[in-house]
């Protein structure tokens, strides 16, 4: 059996928890130039910990940008499809950054503080977005600083996440509304806590100085949160049908095709890509993001062709075995006329056609 390459590769960046991961037997992989843990024990075990209790993720590779100066909002509004102008203090909002053709440069979270704004971007796009912001800054009075190197980011996710984090920070996580944040302290030092995540579960994300990464991490483990790698993060976000940049999102894909039209605010004023998006909005030739449920347990990997009666409908962008559902699932881009839930198709898995059905997204929604 060919086992593939699990060997860690010398890559550019390590998080402040790198040594901990290696010492605790994590398998490390190169993710967007970061040497990251893909799993500690088993992806399915870690996945289940998040669905049933609380899982802990080192997501320090995510890019953390802060905006200061009177024109911060104006710059964000120009590059961002959602409306940052209606954010209240401490509110967090998802949105896209588009190129002039309406393609997605990144998907980001914008945080509003009483004293400025912050943005969390994908690790793979951090340098690109920093350059994009500089390019479009113009004469604005705004300073964008990349805080990624000196800070860390940790997520605690799962139905018991809030309980496991009780009184961890000065402002308790359970008092923070969904998609809001608090600027508080952890052991007397500044810490940002937000009620956000990328797993489909309730939970918190912490941003603080890298120097405190290890003590926070170890305290969370002592409180019963289970360390989880990027492997489980991927199966979790897939079940929740959250798109991943480089798979469901890219420079050639617009937010409408991706099913993210809700994060595009047409009435907020002009923004980069708006004009192109107006044109693309009703273009029936553009493929659409769909969910597929496959028969059997074989996994549809990225790039697998989706066909019907010999006609190629599109391609799979991510697929996995969904541990919570016990099914093989995938996301794909298919021709708009084949995107209706309930329609059947075939996915080519190593030369064999596997029956599949378009299903409505998400695959998994947490019980409330």
């Amino acid at each position, binding site marked *: *059996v060919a*086992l*593939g390459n699990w060997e860690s590769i010398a890559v550019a960046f390590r998080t402040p928890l790198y040594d901990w991961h290696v010492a605790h037997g994590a398998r490390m992989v190169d993710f967007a130039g970061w040497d990251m843990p893909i*799993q500690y024990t088993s*992806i*399915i075990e870690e996945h289940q910990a998040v669905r049933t209790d609380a899982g802990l993720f080192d997501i320090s590779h995510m890019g953390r940008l802060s905006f200061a100066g009177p024109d911060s909002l104006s710059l964000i509004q120009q590059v961002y499809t959602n409306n940052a102008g209606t954010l209240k203090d401490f509110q967090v909002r998802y949105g896209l950054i588009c190129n002039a053709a309406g393609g997605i440069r990144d998907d980001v979270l914008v945080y509003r503080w009483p004293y400025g704004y912050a943005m969390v971007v994908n690790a793979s796009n951090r340098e690109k977005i920093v350059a994009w912001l500089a390019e479009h800054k113009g004469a604005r009075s705004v300073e964008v600083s990349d805080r990624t190197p000196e800070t860390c980011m940790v997520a605690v996710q799962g139905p018991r996440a809030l309980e496991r984090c009780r009184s961890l920070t000065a402002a308790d996580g359970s008092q923070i509304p969904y998609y809001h944040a608090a600027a508080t302290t952890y052991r007397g030092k500044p810490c940002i806590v937000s009620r956000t995540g990328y797993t489909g579960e309730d939970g918190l994300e912490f941003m603080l100085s890298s120097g405190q990464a290890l003590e926070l991490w170890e305290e969370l483990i002592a409180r019963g949160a289970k360390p989880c790698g990027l*492997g489980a993060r991927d199966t979790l976000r897939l079940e929740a049908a959250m798109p991943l940049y480089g798979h469901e999102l890219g420079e050639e894909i617009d937010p409408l095709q991706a099913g993210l039209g809700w994060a595009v605010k047409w009435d907020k004023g002009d923004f980069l890509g708006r004009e192109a998006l107006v044109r693309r909005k009703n273009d029936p030739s553009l493929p659409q993001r769909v969910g597929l449920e496959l028969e059997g347990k074989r996994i549809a990997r990225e790039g697998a062709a989706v066909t019907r009666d010999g006609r190629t409908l599109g391609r799979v962008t991510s697929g*996995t075995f969904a541990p919570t559902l016990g099914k093989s699932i995938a996301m794909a881009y298919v021709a708009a006329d084949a995107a209706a839930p309930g329609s059947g198709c075939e996915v080519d898995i*190593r030369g064999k056609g596997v029956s599949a059905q378009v299903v409505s997204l998400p695959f998994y929604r947490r019980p409330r």
Partner: protein
Amino acid sequence: MDPKTLRYAPTHEWAKLDGAECTVGISQFAVEQLTDIVYIELPEVGDHVFSGESFGEIESVKAVSDLYSPINGEITAINEKLLDDPTRIATDPYGKGWMIKIKAEPGSTLDHLMTLEGYEKQIASEEH
């Protein structure tokens, strides 16, 4: 089966020859590296397999991998229980996790495969 009595391929399959019947599975090390096995595809009884060529596939959450035959011959049995419950491979790779039985071509041996000692040296060099 006792791992000490088995022979090992560089691709992590184990084999045991009893007369002309060769039983094949994958090693504990392979199982630990794969983790989260969700699917296995095996050949059918009567199919011919060839040394060093794929006889099936094993799929984990992370990746799909080919399984390689250690010997030439004809499939006489497959472990059908694995098709419904591939986790048996991980829980008991040398016992309930056996995959196929092959009627080896006359004169076949497993001399080209490693002993446990040789195999352990290989995995030690892969692990670091």
